[in-house]
């Protein structure tokens, strides 16, 4: 994991993320129901991922499956702060963000199963979930390729004079892509309301951060005269406290930032990764034992008397059932047809009554 640079802004004001996250205003103002909802959403993500892994093992799902288990607090913490004009875009490890923005398990599981009832009608798959109606712009398979798009979403917000911010998520491996640096420069140069969120789970596939990146990850922002920060992602309140600061700044002052959120993935890179070449099982166990994001928030809620063990059991059971039901829904759903192959390619072809162009759009 990365070393711990102190928080910094170009102006040089050191502002360490609140050491007691409970005291951050954005957390103090949470109602009991809202605190439970954070926990519930994290639980839903975990149970969804576990269920989808079983479906994959049962050969119900093709291709890649990148699980978010261990990272739940990051997507949930960040997305819980979204207002009407805030937007999210991420990479292929996107199930957590999809659930965190409120997408339903049915449409997600059906997408994994390649069914017509999936969120992308079975055309995108695990790496390509989208819900523009929830300001969720995917789900992108090319490492780092989504970052210029997120910058463009922020450009459009600013152009239209809307008070919003974009959270553009990427992994610790993506930071070395050229397109990411191009986006950093544009965001800073044009003062765009975008927060580049590095979800640092320590590894890009089988390559540790130490073996892929020179120097610290968020400090690269300084080269672009951008604010940067870093926090421990295992505690959802810490994530919220840090993100609130930069989201508010982005919305109010249209300023970008780079933030690193330290987290960990428990499973292999994808389910095809046997996970026995680049890290020790003990490392995974240690994180799970001491920093599991669900355990962390659960303990706090119990200490605070917000939840009893029985309540937790109920929430867990409900999440398991929701995931099971989603698998049943996906199983029972129809596949897209061969005719569907050429739908959703061109806006114009999908709206023949409004077509302006002529000539052939498709070829054989």
């Amino acid at each position, binding site marked *: 994991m990365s070393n711990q640079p102190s928080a910094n802004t170009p102006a040089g004001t050191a502002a360490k993320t609140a050491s007691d996250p409970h005291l951050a205003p954005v957390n103090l103002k949470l109602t009991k129901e809202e605190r439970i909802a954070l926990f519930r959403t994290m639980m839903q993500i975990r149970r969804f991922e576990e269920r989808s892994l079983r479906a994959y093992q049962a050969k119900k799902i093709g291709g890649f499956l990148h699980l978010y288990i261990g990272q739940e607090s990051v997507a949930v913490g960040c997305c819980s702060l979204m207002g009407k004009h805030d937007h999210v875009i991420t990479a292929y490890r996107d199930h957590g963000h999809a659930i965190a923005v409120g997408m339903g398990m049915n449409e997600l599981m059906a997408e994994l199963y390649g069914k017509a009832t999936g969120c992308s009608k079975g055309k*995108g798959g695990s790496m390509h979930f*989208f819900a523009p109606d929830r300001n969720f712009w995917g789900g992108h398979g090319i490492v780092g390729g989504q970052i210029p798009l997120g910058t463009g979403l922020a450009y459009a917000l600013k152009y239209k004079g809307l008070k919003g911010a974009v959270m553009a998520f990427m992994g610790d491996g993506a930071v070395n892509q050229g397109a990411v640096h191009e986006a950093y420069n544009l965001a800073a140069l044009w003062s765009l309301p975008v927060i580049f969120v590095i979800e640092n789970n320590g590894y890009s596939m089988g390559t540790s951060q130490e073996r892929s990146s020179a120097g610290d990850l968020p400090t690269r922002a300084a080269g672009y005269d951008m604010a940067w920060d870093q926090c421990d992602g295992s505690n959802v309140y810490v994530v919220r406290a840090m993100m609130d600061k930069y989201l508010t700044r982005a919305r109010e002052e249209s300023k970008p930032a780079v933030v690193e959120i330290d987290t960990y993935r428990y499973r292999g890179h994808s389910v095809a990764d046997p996970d026995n070449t680049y890290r020790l099982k003990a490392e995974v166990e240690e994180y799970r034992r001491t920093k599991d994001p669900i355990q962390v928030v659960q303990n706090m809620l119990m200490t605070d008397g917000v939840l009893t063990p029985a309540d937790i059991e109920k929430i867990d059971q409900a999440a398991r059932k929701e995931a099971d039901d989603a698998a049943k829904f996906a199983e029972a759903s129809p596949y897209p047809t061969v005719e569907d192959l050429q739908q959703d390619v*061109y806006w114009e072809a999908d709206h023949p009554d409004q077509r302006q162009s002529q*000539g052939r759009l498709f070829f054989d």
Partner: protein
Amino acid sequence: MPEITYREAIRHALAEELERDANVVIMGEEVAQFNGAYKVTEGLLAKFGPKRIVDTPITEAGFIGTGIGASMLGLRPVMELMFWSFYSVAFDQILNNAANVRYMSGGLINCPIVIRGPANGGTNVGATHSHTPENVLANHPGVKVVVPATAYDAKGLLKSAIRDNDPVFFLENTILYGEKGEVPTAEYLIPLGLADVKRQGRDLTIVTYGRSVIHSLAAAEVLHKEHGVLVEVVDLRSIRPLDIDTVLKSVAKTHRVLIVEEQKPFASVGSQLAYMIQREAFDELDAPIHRVATVDAPAIYSPPVEVEQLPNPQRVIKAALEMLG
């Protein structure tokens, strides 16, 4: 009708669409203060201001990707590539993101973006600056590709492109920028996907587009005057969507097809055309389809030799006469 240059025609299309729709924004390297590397956007900054006419750094993947993202949220960015040749450094943004995002989202998203700029050889700038990627672009379902040959076509097609809800790639030509043509002052649109018969004939059909249209018309004139051959010249104008019907109609009239294109031969636009013509009009053909393309090598610098590497009237005349035996 007033005569204006191809460059001015494009500029007028941009200005009219900027005027019409507040979501249209022009972005690119040197488009604003510098007035455009090829002066296409000259005067637009003064008229529309820096919010609408935006200079970008030299960061094609970054700014093209930014434009695509902005288009997903409803802007209509018109991005200038100083040369289409530079598309290679933004390939992922153009052909993974703009081309695929509608499909991968099951139709929830569309990208009403235009990427425009010159794509041609013939200016002695060597292999890195002389790419003609219309075949590569058109290979991607989800995108539209337009290559205008005249001032009139450039204006009408660009206005349609900007109003289009799909990504449209608009390939211009530095050698044509100064060419004048008649362009009406009244507003008009030319639909994408509509070919134009630029010269009527009965002995041979030349199917072509872009600057090769100009070469083909010059060749047709010589073939008529000196050889009594009547050549029909079909200008595709749009590669995708493709107006194959106009091509087939001409084939049914002349029964002979010569494709003229500024393309490397392998898997070119002409390869696709030849496949479609033989498939859909086999019985109409009296001779094998023939083609004049770029000589198959990277673009040479040497000025007199580059002329011979590209289609030119002499090469077209020679090929036509060979076909007519």
